[in-house]
C-alpha cells in the first residue's frame, strides 16, 4: 500500500526532518511509528497524504507516485486516505456530527448512510451525547476522537493516525484502539504515529522508530 524509497525531507532553512527513509507497508497491515517528539513522525505522515512534498526520494501510495497527482486524481486519492491530524483540523464552529460527515460528503455518500455512520462512530468512541455539540466547546480528548471518527468514516483503504491517544484516559484509549483494529480487520491499512508505548506494547504488529529523521526497526510484526 505504501512504498517509500530513500525519502528525505528538509524544511527550510536546514531542518532535516527525515533522512533516507525507505519503508514498505503492506496492504492490510497495522503499522506503528514511534519516536520522541520532533523525530519526524508527523512529517512522514504528511508526505504520505501529499500535504508536504519530499525533498528527495519516491513516495508511492496504492501504486501511484503521490507527488505527480493533480486535480481530480489527487482529490480521488485523498478520499481514499483517512487522516487524523495531530492538530485535528476540525471546524470548531460546526457540530461534531457535521465534522465527521465532511469526509463522506465529499465522496457523495447518501445522507441516510452518513447519518447512520456518524451515529455509530460516535457511539463506539463514547461520544454519543456529543452529536450536536459544537466542536469548539469539546475537550481536547473529545476533539481528538471526533478527528479520528472523521478519518475512518469514509472507510478509506489507508488510515493515517497521528498521536491518537495523547489526551485520552486508559478506557477511551482502549475504545480508540478497538475502532482502529476493526478498521484493520475490515481490510484497511492503518499507520499509527505515537510516542505512547502502551498502545503497541501488547500487540503483534510491526513497530519502527524514528530517531532524528532516521528509521529503525523496533519489532518485526507477526506474519500476515
Amino acid at each position, binding site marked *: 500500500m505504501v512504498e517509500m524509497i530513500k525519502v528525505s525531507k528538509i524544511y527550510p532553512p536546514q531542518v532535516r526532518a527525515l533522512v533516507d527513509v525507505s519503508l514498505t507497508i503492506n496492504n492490510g497491515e497495522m503499522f506503528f511509528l514511534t519516536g520522541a517528539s520532533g523525530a519526524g513522525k508527523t512529517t512522514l505522515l504528511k508526505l504520505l*497524504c501529499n*500535504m508536504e512534498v519530499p525533498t528527495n526520494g519516491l513516495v508511492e501510495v496504492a501504486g501511484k507516485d503521490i507527488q505527480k497527482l493533480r*486535480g*481530480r486524481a489527487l*482529490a*480521488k*486519492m*485523498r*478520499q*481514499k*486516505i483517512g*487522516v487524523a491530524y495531530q492538530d485535528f*483540523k476540525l*471546524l470548531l464552529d460546526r457540530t461534531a456530527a457535521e465534522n465527521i460527515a*465532511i*469526509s463522506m*460528503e*465529499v*465522496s*457523495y455518500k*447518501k*445522507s441516510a448512510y452518513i447519518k447512520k455512520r456518524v451515529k455509530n462512530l460516535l457511539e463506539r468512541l463514547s461520544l454519543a451525547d456529543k452529536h450536536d455539540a459544537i466542536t469548539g466547546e469539546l475537550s481536547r480528548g473529545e476533539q481528538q476522537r471526533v478527528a479520528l471518527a*472523521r478519518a475512518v468514516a469514509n472507510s478509506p483503504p489507508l488510515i493515517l493516525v497521528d498521536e491518537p491517544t495523547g489526551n485520552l484516559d486508559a478506557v477511551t484509549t482502549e475504545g480508540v484502539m478497538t475502532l482502529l483494529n476493526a478498521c484493520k480487520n475490515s481490510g484497511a491499512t492503518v499507520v499509527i504515529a505515537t510516542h505512547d508505548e502502551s498502545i503497541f506494547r501488547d500487540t503483534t504488529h510491526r513497530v519502527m522508530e524514528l530517531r532524528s529523521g532516521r528509521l529503525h526497526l523496533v519489532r518485526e510484526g507477526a506474519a500476515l
Partner: protein
Amino acid sequence: MNFWFAVFRQAGRNLRQTWPSQCMTLLTVSLSVLIFAFFFLVYTNMLGVGDKLGDDLRLIVYLEEEPGPELQEQLRRKILAFDEVEDIRFISRLQAYERFAAQLGDDSDVLADMPQDFLPASIEVVPLKNLRSLTQLKLFSEYLAKLPGTLKVQYGQDWIERFYYFIRLLSIVVFLSGGLLILTSVFMVSYTIRLTILARQAELELLKLVGATNNYIKTPFLMEGFLQGVLGSTLGLAALYVLFQWIRSNFSGPGFLAMFEFTFFKPPFLIAIIAISILLCTIGSYTSMQKFLRT
C-alpha cells in the same frame, strides 16, 4: 444527482453565513440593472418617437424655375455628394398645384382663379433615418440652400435636430450605465464571493485535504454568482416595470406624451438582459474562485 445535492447544501451554508453581504450585492446588482434598463428603455422609446416624427420629415428645396431632365440629374448628383439620402423627389409646378388642391379638398374652388403655375417647383429630399443623418439636418439644409437656382430651403422643424441630439446624448448615457452594470456586477459579486471564501477559508482548506474535487468546491460559489445574476436582474427589471406602469398611468392624460405609445421591452430583450447579468455575475465569482484554487 448526489453532486447537485452536495452543491445545494454547500451553497445554502454559504448563504447562511454571509447573507448580509449577499443581500448588499443583490441590491447593487439590481440597482445597476435598473439604472441601465431605465436609460435603455427611455432610449428605445425615444427612438420610436423619433421614427414617428421623422416619418414626414423632409427638406423642401424651392427652385427658381422648373428644372429640365438634365438639370434634375445634375442636382441629384450634387445632393448625393453631401450625403446618401432615402429619396429625392422633383415636384413640378403642376404637381404642387394638384397636391395643394387635393389638400384643400372641398375648398379647392378657391383656387379656381389662380394660374396653375403659381406655386414654385421644388425638390423634396427625404433624409436617411439614422442618427448621423438626422443630427446634421441643419448643415444639410445650408448646403442645399447654396445649390444654384434655389430660392430657399424649408425644413422648419429644427427642434427635430435638437431632439436627435438629445437621443445621441441618451445613447452615451446608456453606454455609461451599461459600463456601470458590468463593473458593479463583476466586481461586487467577486468581492462578496471573496468575503465568503475568507470567512470559510478553514473549511475550504479542509475540503481539499479530505479529497473534495475542485468542482465540489467551486460549483456552489459559481451557483451563488449565477443566483445573484438571476435574482438581481429580475428584481431590477421588475422594479423598472413597476416604474414604467406608474409613469404610464400617471402621465397618460391628454398632452404631448399621449401622442406616442410607450412600450416596455420585448421578452427576447428581457431574456437577453437577464442572461448577460447572469454571465457577468458568474464571471465575477469565477475569478474569485480561480484566485483561491490557485493558491
